[in-house]
């Protein structure tokens, strides 16, 4: 187990080092997410934002920008066929999945640190009403989205129509997660907040994540063996 985690961290660090040099993913996802928010702000904010709009807009921006990052993170492994080299390493193949997932999570977390305050600013969202609960929803939502996305992006890495297939597979599978995220966040942002309801959605996300990560770790080795 320790060896698996060590290998996963080695792979994640490698991805982050490459990203720190190119800044390709962070700029792409960040600019896309911010552009999304601005478009929604111009569309939905007049004198005051539409009720519950902030929660939905936040999660849409995160899901779309996350999809961009997902496609590119495995595109890098396609160049030079380095994914094969990772699969040849004497570690559980789940470590490769875990490493890619950790790197993607850290990247999405960096994007969220910019995007969430902008949502608060543009849509007057009360970010500090229940900050721990909001952070929990975002963290668990991101883990679930990235966990499913990493598995599908890896499976599709050799498919010629992967750019089309990834969203087609990803969005239906992540719909329950996005709904839970939106509902939980809306319960916090509402004029009459319902923190118990938000906690229930948080618990649902936790359950969803546990199932998704377990299944992904279980099947990754099999689906990556040609």
């Amino acid at each position, binding site marked *: 187990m320790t060896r698996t985690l060590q290998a996963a961290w080695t792979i994640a660090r490698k991805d982050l080092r490459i990203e720190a040099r190119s800044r390709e993913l962070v700029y792409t996802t960040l600019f896309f997410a911010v552009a999304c928010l601005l478009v929604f702000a111009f569309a939905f904010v007049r004198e005051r934002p539409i009720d519950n709009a902030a929660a939905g807009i936040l999660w849409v921006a995160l899901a779309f920008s996350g999809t961009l990052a997902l496609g590119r993170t495995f595109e890098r492994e396609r160049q030079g066929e380095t994914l094969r080299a990772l699969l*040849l390493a004497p570690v559980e193949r789940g470590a490769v999945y875990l490493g890619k997932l950790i790197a993607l999570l850290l990247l999405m977390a960096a994007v969220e640190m910019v995007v969430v305050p902008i949502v608060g600013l543009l849509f007057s969202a009360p970010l500090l009403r229940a900050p721990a609960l909001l952070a929990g929803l975002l963290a668990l939502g991101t883990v679930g989205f990235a966990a499913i996305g990493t598995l599908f992006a890896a499976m599709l890495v050799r498919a010629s129509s992967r750019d089309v297939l990834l969203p087609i597979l990803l969005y239906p599978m992540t719909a329950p997660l996005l709904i839970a995220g939106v509902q939980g966040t809306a319960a916090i942002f509402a004029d009459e907040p319902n923190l118990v309801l938000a906690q229930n959605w948080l618990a649902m996300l936790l359950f969803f994540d546990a199932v998704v990560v377990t299944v992904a770790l279980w099947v990754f080795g099999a689906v990556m063996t040609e």
Partner: protein
Amino acid sequence: MSGGPHALAPDDFDRVSVRDVSRTFGRRRALARVSLDCRAGEIVAVLGPNGAGKSTLLGILATLMRPSDGEIRYGARTAAEAGDGLRGRIGVLGHDLFLYGELTARENLRFFGRLYDVSDLDARVDAALAAARLSDRADDRAGAFSRGLRQRLALERALLHAPRLVLLDEPFTGLDDDSAAHLSARLRELKLHGAIVVMATHDFETADGVVDRAICLDNGKLRDVPAGAGPLRERYRQALREARG
């Protein structure tokens, strides 16, 4: 055969046995009941026309693909019995070089060294850079190297963990005469240390003085290239003619 980084560990394998291995992709048959034995200290060339199944055979030996039928034993064990650790005894140089262009030569080697849990990593990386004759460009990005330099780096990446089974797909591609001679010397060194080297190549002249024996794949079927005094290219053509009747 003893000593050196490729010396046999107590639980290591000293032969690879391929038994009646077939592999199909949909309706296309890439390998048809291929059987082959490779022993420690032996360099085997896999020859054949494009699309004959050479890369498929190497992919199966590397455990990247499963055979549709038949089995491969690494010593007494199959890949499933040996587990993930078996991959630590296999080194692969693919046609694609398995290098990260954004990382430096040293970073590439360090990354793979960590994945393979190589001991005394800094010293091994320095030795690998020296063997690739890239010590003075260790901190340059691999993406900035010519094909030949990347090929040399990729070979050392494949050998960094001192594998028992070395699988090379077109290792002479992009190498100048000096580098090709250097690679030939490196292969002889591996042989001396007891590695099992299986090499797919079209470079008959360079391979001729290096390999112990050659096999020929044609349309997924294996045939031995006869040993003899003649040039490898002639013996290969003869094997191909006989295979095609």
